[in-house]
């Protein structure tokens, strides 16, 4: 976000609300951080000044606690359980419906979502990288998903640089953060008295232009740049930066899969919070009057019993094979599908795992064992 320092503006702290107000005035439903049940969630900002201040998210395997930020910043919490994914890939939605008349004739019709313009304030570099992967999946050339496309086109993304990574963050090792580099409409870097603000799209530039920001000083830009570098250096977890495909796919019978299966509850929390997981089930919901039925999709998890269901048997009957499916898809076969790993380093699967399973530890155990043998 600092490649063109001459284009960077400075948004004083007091003017953050005017950015929100501007987006609301442009017709956007504005979402931003809020606190619910002890965690940061993205919720509708009813008023421009509704963004909470002075919170940090302390995270560890199986642990997430909000604490006070001594510097009283707006975006010192690294992340919450969800950010952009539910806004583009809806957790549940109707795909088509069918009407049946009394003679039994069927009439099928597509159902397209009615989607408002939505702006989301406070997304992270990892979230943007994940969105790019969701785009690659759902907007595949020649076979774009109409529902996803409809929502995606109406999104306005205000990213913020992470200056305060959680202990679960590993975006520096995956190359996806902590400073946003692409995929945003506006990116902010929070300093003590305001934000260095840059536009990443024409839409973003128009909004910033209307705010009449003064240019950011070189010193402000350098400070922002430096805090991004410090945040990267402060990360304590990492994945090997090399392509893990062959390393993992050659260890499909490694005893560690059995070991992790004794700890994994197959609850699917990791999948639910993962910003790149795209599996969904399709289900039918017939109306009680017997005259119509909705065909809907709902987020699904490869840890669930039904995921590998095939007539009469289950392809992945045990937790060992399900955890292996999840991890090898994310870190190995994702390379075959999308040309990169499916992990963007957000660390959510570590924090939100009730058993505290840490994928970086699993990868280390799976790959070290082999280099030793």
């Amino acid at each position: 976000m600092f490649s063109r320092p001459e284009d960077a503006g400075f948004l004083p702290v007091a003017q953050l609300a005017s950015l929100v107000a501007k987006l609301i005035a442009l017709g956007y439903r504005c979402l931003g951080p809020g606190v619910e049940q002890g965690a940061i969630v993205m919720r509708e900002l009813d008023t421009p000044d509704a963004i909470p201040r002075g919170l940090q998210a302390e995270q560890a395997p199986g642990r997430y606690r909000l604490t006070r930020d001594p510097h009283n910043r707006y975006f010192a919490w690294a992340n919450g359980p969800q950010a952009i994914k539910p806004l583009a890939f809806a957790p549940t939605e109707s795909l088509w419906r069918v009407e049946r008349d009394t003679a039994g004739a069927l009439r099928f019709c597509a159902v397209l979502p009615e989607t408002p313009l939505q702006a989301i304030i406070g997304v992270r570099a990892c979230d943007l990288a994940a969105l790019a992967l969701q785009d690659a999946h759902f907007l595949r050339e020649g076979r774009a998903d109409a529902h996803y496309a409809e929502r995606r086109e109406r999104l306005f993304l205000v990213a913020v640089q992470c200056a305060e990574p959680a202990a679960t963050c590993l975006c520096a090792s995956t190359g996806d953060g902590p400073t946003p580099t692409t995929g945003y409409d506006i990116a902010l870097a929070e300093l003590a008295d305001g934000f260095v603000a840059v536009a990443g799209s024409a839409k973003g530039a128009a909004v910033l232009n209307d705010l009449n920001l003064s240019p950011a000083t070189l010193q402000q830009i350098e400070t922002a740049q430096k805090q991004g570098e410090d945040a990267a250096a402060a990360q304590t977890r990492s994945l090997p930066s090399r392509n893990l495909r062959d390393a993992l796919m050659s260890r499909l019978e490694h005893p560690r899969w059995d070991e992790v299966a004794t700890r994994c509850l197959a609850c699917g929390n990791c999948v639910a919070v993962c910003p790149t997981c795209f599996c969904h089930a399709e289900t039918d919901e017939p109306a009680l009057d017997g005259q119509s039925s909705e065909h809907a999709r709902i987020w699904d998890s490869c840890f669930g019993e039904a995921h590998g269901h095939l007539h009469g048997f289950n392809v992945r009957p045990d937790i060992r094979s399900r955890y292996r499916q999840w991890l090898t898809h994310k870190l190995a076969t994702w390379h075959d599908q999308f040309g990169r790993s499916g992990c963007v380093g957000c660390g959510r699967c570590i924090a939100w795992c009730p058993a505290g399973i840490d994928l970086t530890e699993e990868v280390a155990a799976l790959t070290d064992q082999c280099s030793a043998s």
Partner: protein
Amino acid sequence: MHKPIDAGPPHAATVVACTQESPTIFTLQLRLDDEAVRQAYRFAPGQFNMLYLYGVGEVPISVMSDPEERGMIGHTVRALGRVTHGLAALGPGDKVGLRGPFGRGWPLQEMGGCDVVLVTGGLGCAPAVSVIHYVLRRRERFGKLVIIQGVKHAEDLIWREQYDGWARLPNTQVLVAADQGSTSWPWHVGHVTDLLDLAQFNPARAVAMMCGPEGMMRAAAVSLLTRALPETHLFLSMERNMHCAVGRCGHCQFGGAFVCRDGPVFGWSEVRDLLAHRGY
């Protein structure tokens, strides 16, 4: 800007005929209701359709009819789950939804001049039947046709008359086996792989296509490759859970492949390594 292509909704189709093939297996002949949709519909042997039962859901079913026979689309189904049990109860005139065809079928066009060896197990014979139709319509373009089918119990064998009929055709060999025979069972009792030694074909100029339980296909592949069939001439049809059929819902992933989109037919070398691992 982004148009749904074939992810749904389905097209309405009418059941024209249903045939009970065995106590649990039945064949539905379907006709798409819309004239333009019907005219446009083409499939390649090995591809599948999603069949929708009102209010219950969709299932992927391979097309078993003759690809040249326009207007009628045949599916042979085993009643096992909620949708297929419901489909089994349908009769002529009943309505279903149909979308497809999906996936990559058998590579028949590139295999002219070859002997064709079909190794199928159980209901794996259904996706192979359209290959048989295809080859028989173009008999001069292919060498020998070897049809090998195995079932668990003798009473599971469907299409007995067809197997008898194909066996009488020139240049065609039919070999059938049941793990458990019965008093009137005229064929081999044992594994389908036992029959491969009896199959007469020129391995250097043959293409083999397999569909059935993965254990059976693995054993058959070993046997065929031992007979010096080139690995590039060995194909199999895979089966996985499928909801969307367009490579989106993620259920059918097999390694990096989406079986619905990149398969269901794969070259042996594409799946060989992963097939060895239970739970993939």
